[in-house]
């Protein structure tokens, strides 16, 4: 009888720019000032959009909204590293990914106003509409990545999901398929510590989410998701690896949403004030400011200018969206099939009739 070790795994945690602004020079990615400027502006735009959207929902002008504030770095920086030919699979909180990918702010407002035109992917983008159902986008993303490999397209797929999604069967099926097929996909898990109110510690017995990749035969890495440099370096490597045909990577971004899960959630019921305040000090935007300041490309004047520009863009986009928004009850039926089947036509006619009757009653 022999007993030999057949598998031994390791999972790294990466932080390059720490909370106090210290940089690990050995790991620091080579970033041009222009890249930093663009990424910073994107993050500020995301934050302005996010705050505006929350306000608008409270005023009854958006139906519902799921804020992203606090998670901008992991979304914006990772998406920034993707090219036009690449593809993202996203979820309801992926506003940062959408903005970094080049969706118009107007369209995003239209989406959260519940209009069909808001959900349409612009013709010049290769991305897929966001997923509301937890984890459904994962197998789809792997399928898409496998397709691009089979078709020999130079396209990498990035898929975004939360910590809660890792408990879904789809996550495991997707990782298995990706691993065994060496699919060109990057799994980006934004671990913001809560699946709505379920804390990470009762989500899985694993020490990290990243280590789950090992079971499927590829690399997983846990990073400081509020550290733009760590996100940049890790994502860059993962994208290059996928593009070179060397298979998938799972990146677990440790981050935190500052706000509620959604506009109908009250996080004070499951998070402490102290915890929230500690994370606000760990704000990815603040940390990036410090890094850029150290490089001599951030000051108060620049900040005011970036902020004003972002605010103006967001306000203007909403004005345009509100002027354009036009929803008819028939929209519910219109966009499912290229040609509307008979049963939907009948339902639509019935709805119209009911609406007419309601109008009659009001007179």
């Amino acid at each position, binding site marked *: 009888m022999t007993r030999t070790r057949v598998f031994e795994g390791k999972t790294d945690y990466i932080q390059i720019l720490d909370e106090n602004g210290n940089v690990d020079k050995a790991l620091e990615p080579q970033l041009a000032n222009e890249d930093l400027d663009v990424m910073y502006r994107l993050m500020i735009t995301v934050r302005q959009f996010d705050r*505006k959207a929350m*306000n608008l*929902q*409270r*005023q*009854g*002008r958006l*139906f*519902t909204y799921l804020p992203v504030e606090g998670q901008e770095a992991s979304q914006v920086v990772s998406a920034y590293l993707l090219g036009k030919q690449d593809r993202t699979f996203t979820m309801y909180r992926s506003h940062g990914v959408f903005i970094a990918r080049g969706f118009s702010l107007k369209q995003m407002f239209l989406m959260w106003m519940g209009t069909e035109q808001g959900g349409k992917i612009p013709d010049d983008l290769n991305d897929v509409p966001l997923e509301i159902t937890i984890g459904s986008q994962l197998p789809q993303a792997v399928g898409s990545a496998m397709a691009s490999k089979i078709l020999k397209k130079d396209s990498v797929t990035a898929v975004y999901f939360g910590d809660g999604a890792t408990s879904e069967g789809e996550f495991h099926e997707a990782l298995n398929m990706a691993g065994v097929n060496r699919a060109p996909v990057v799994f980006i898990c934004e671990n913001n510590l809560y699946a709505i109110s379920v804390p990470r510690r009762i989500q899985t017995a694993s020490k990290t989410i990243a280590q789950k990749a090992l079971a499927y035969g590829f690399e997983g890495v846990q990073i400081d998701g509020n550290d733009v440099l760590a996100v940049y370096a890790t994502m860059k490597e993962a994208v290059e690896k996928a593009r070179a045909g060397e298979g998938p990577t799972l990146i677990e971004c440790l981050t935190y949403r500052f706000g*509620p899960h*959604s*506009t*109908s*959630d*009250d996080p004070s019921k499951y998070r402490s004030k102290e915890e929230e305040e500690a994370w606000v000090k760990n704000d990815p935007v603040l940390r990036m400011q410090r890094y850029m300041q150290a490089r001599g490309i951030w000051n108060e004047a620049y900040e005011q200018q970036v902020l004003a520009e972002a605010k103006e863009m967001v306000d203007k986009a909403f004005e345009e969206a509100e002027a354009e928004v036009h929803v008819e009850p028939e929209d519910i039926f219109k966009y499912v099939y290229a040609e509307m089947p008979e049963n939907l036509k009948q339902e639509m006619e019935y709805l119209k009739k009911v609406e007419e009757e309601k109008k009659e009653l009001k007179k």
Partner: protein
Amino acid sequence: MAFQFKLPDVGEGIHEGKLVKWLLDEGAEVKADQPVVEVETDKAVVEIPSPKAGTLIKQHSKVGDVVKVGEVLFELGEKGEQSNYVATKTELPAATVQKSQPPAPKIPTPLVSLPSPALSSEGGKVLATPATRKFASDMGVGIEQVKGSGPGGRVTIDDVKAYAASGSGKAGGAASAAGGAGAATYASAPMSSASSEVHEDFGPVERMKISGHRRAIGERMRKSVYTMPHVTHMEEADVTWLVQVRERAKADAAAKGVKLTYLPFIIKAALGALKEFPQFNARFDEATQELVLRKYYNIGLAVDTDEGLTVPVIKDADKKDLLALAEEITRLSDEARTRKLKLEEMRGGTFTITNIGSVGGVYATPIINYPEIAILGVMKIKERPVIVEKMVESRKIMTLVLSYDHAMIDGGVAARFMNAVVKRLEDPTLL
């Protein structure tokens, strides 16, 4: 022009919110997107920002008020502008009512924990264990009427007993009578007992307990329909002659104190046909798979009483003349309506006649009185134009319907049986 800000749905499907705090006083300058007020919904406390800049000229609710979605929360306007907004009928009263209502009385916490079905208040109705409900149902007591003495007003078995003993429930008496002796008759069981009005999904309903008599009818009807493939054959008889005969006989009978209806004639006609076609005076023996032809003729008569259908039986009808039949019909009908029929008087039938026509109807499809094999239905005699030898004449027409067990009897046989009945009704000398 003042701008009225209405409380939006700040969650998903929120209908109202409680005003927690005004963040700005009346008269304050407001910037666009500046938080103005805090509202607590059933999900969370949210700050509500103003959609536009202006002066807060009026706060339309006070701290602690419950504001419905769509109600005006505050108004913005020019500095010094007065609010002249008045809530319309559909808006504020709802909230006012809510405020002035005293808190709903709370059901005291039960001292002991009980299975959840007992605690679930079924739309604020009676609390009782399933065993108690069953007991009340068996006693014929509507549990809604019983005052509960248990924790939280729960009705106990003792409460039901006490209620039944007090005689408050009329059903109590009936139930004990029914359970009393075999002498109790079908007709004496009440149609319903202890009904009560309750609300179901789409509106108020009344639940009626089914009496033993009703249940017995139902069981026999079901057994009949589910075991025998029913076919109903329909025919007309020209009874103009019979009508004349009966008119004359009626006066004679009346002189003897007998009420002569058409029914004795119909029974006579049916008896003649039954003797010609013995398979109609029969029952099917399921166990032996035999048709049991009865050599006696007991004719059942369906009688419509206040308590439901009752079928008294004329024994040995073939041995009775018209007047005797008439007398027996009168006696049995009266007894049925006054619930004096004895069990024996409702048993042993071999063929049934239902005189549904006395109430109304053009045709009917009667259900066979299980375990008999057929039933004859008689409709009202009507005066109708009939072509007789190329001339239209006014004739008296009676419609007859015959339901029979098609498993035992073919359509041709049934038609011939019916013809035999019709022949006798059209020519009373054959009776």
